[in-house]
């Protein structure tokens, strides 16, 4: 099927590549179908593109890249629909903000990871209600040349 994307234009996506988030994203329950897009040279970063809203896309990265120790405590009940626990990959949302002096800072949301099981193509965004999991962790040091794409 053809999916209209925010930064890649229309792309052809096999139906079986669609990842379902049955609950949607937190606060955005209608956003339930996504595709994972990889740009050459940008591994391990991905674009998570909404199938239903061309203008909605997130930049995500496996948690491993940001913190190899990242293992948020998640209630069993929240991942009950996500299949085998060992197949679940925490992906972290990354974004950029312009600072007052015109520079850019890049942040990662460690409080609300996207737990994705690639094998069954299902995901869920969970909220980790613990202080040591920040909503905005500055990761500017690991990326370069950021510019916003509003």
């Amino acid at each position, binding site marked *: 099927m053809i999916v209209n994307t925010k930064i*890649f234009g229309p*792309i052809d996506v096999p139906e079986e*590549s669609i990842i379902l988030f049955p609950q949607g994203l937190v606060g*955005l329950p209608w956003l339930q179908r996504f595709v994972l897009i*990889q740009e050459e040279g940008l591994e391990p970063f991905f674009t998570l593109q909404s199938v239903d809203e061309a203008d909605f896309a997130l930049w995500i990265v496996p948690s491993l890249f940001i913190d190899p120790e990242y293992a948020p405590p998640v209630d069993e009940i929240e991942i009950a629909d996500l299949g085998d626990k060992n197949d679940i990959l925490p992906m972290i949302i990354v*974004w*950029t903000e312009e600072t007052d002096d015109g520079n850019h800072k890049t942040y990662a949301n460690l409080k609300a990871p996207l737990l994705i099981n690639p094998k069954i193509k299902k995901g869920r965004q969970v909220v980790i209600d613990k202080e040591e999991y920040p909503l905005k962790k500055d990761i500017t040091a690991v990326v370069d040349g950021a510019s916003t*794409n509003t």
Partner: protein
Amino acid sequence: MLVLTRKKGEAIVIGDNIKIVVVSVSGDSVKIGIEAPADVKILRAELLEAVKDINVVAAKTMPHVKVKKGGEKPSILTDLTIKAKRKDT
């Protein structure tokens, strides 16, 4: 919205198995106790709002960045990933 007046120590029951108790009141703070089944997720509303706001902001300011420290993508993702190039900008 249903609005009820409760005194310290009084409670409200929601459905069959959720109970909310007013534990104490001090100035404009109210301490609330909640009894609910383990599968009922309880979060402060402003936390969910904050997560939603970040979701929206992150979708608006998706960065064009170069990765300083590259990395392998987990092989489990290979079959799922669509390859694409950006439109000319």
